[in-house]
């Protein structure tokens, strides 16, 4: 069973990487923020697969942290000015 889970994790890594490359390319900032969401779901799923395959339960915490980071990244984005690309902590709308 562990082999199957590792192979799935590797395939998932490939898919997530492909999606990440696509989203980081843009064109809009919202596209790039979706890359962070992709790390949350795709990366989280990879971490869970590895956790179960290897028995290293600490990997579950990795998935948890990825999901949390993705959520807070989206909140941080939406607190910035819509449509602008300023980096210096946008004003609270």
């Amino acid at each position: 069973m562990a082999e199957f889970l590792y192979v799935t994790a590797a395939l998932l890594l490939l898919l997530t990487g492909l999606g990440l490359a696509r989203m980081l390319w843009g064109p809009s900032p919202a596209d790039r923020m979706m890359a962070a969401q992709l790390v949350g779901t795709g990366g989280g799923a990879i971490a869970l697969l590895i956790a179960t395959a290897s028995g290293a339960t600490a990997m579950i915490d990795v998935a948890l942290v990825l999901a949390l980071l993705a959520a807070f990244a989206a909140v941080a984005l939406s607190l910035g000015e819509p449509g602008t690309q300023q980096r210096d902590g946008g004003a609270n709308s």
Partner: protein
Amino acid sequence: MSLMADTLTIAAVSAGLFFFLAGTVGLLRFPDTLTRLHALTKADNLGFGLIVLGLLPQSPDVASGLKLVVVWLLVQLAGASASQLIAQFASKGGPSA
């Protein structure tokens, strides 16, 4: 018993992988930002859920199974809220609710 658990795992995890594949294809093919957001939130969240479902029979004890379920709930909740925040940001309009 173990055979049944393994069958369920392989079926659900494979299905989950399929939906991640569909989500990635959607990201590559869909024409605009908001449509791509549909692909990301719907397909990938389902893929994640199916993988968690598939991993449940393999968890060594009830506690780690529960933990997997909590992670899944968090991802669902985060996905549902984050997708709306990103959608609102992408459409550059509308007062925040």
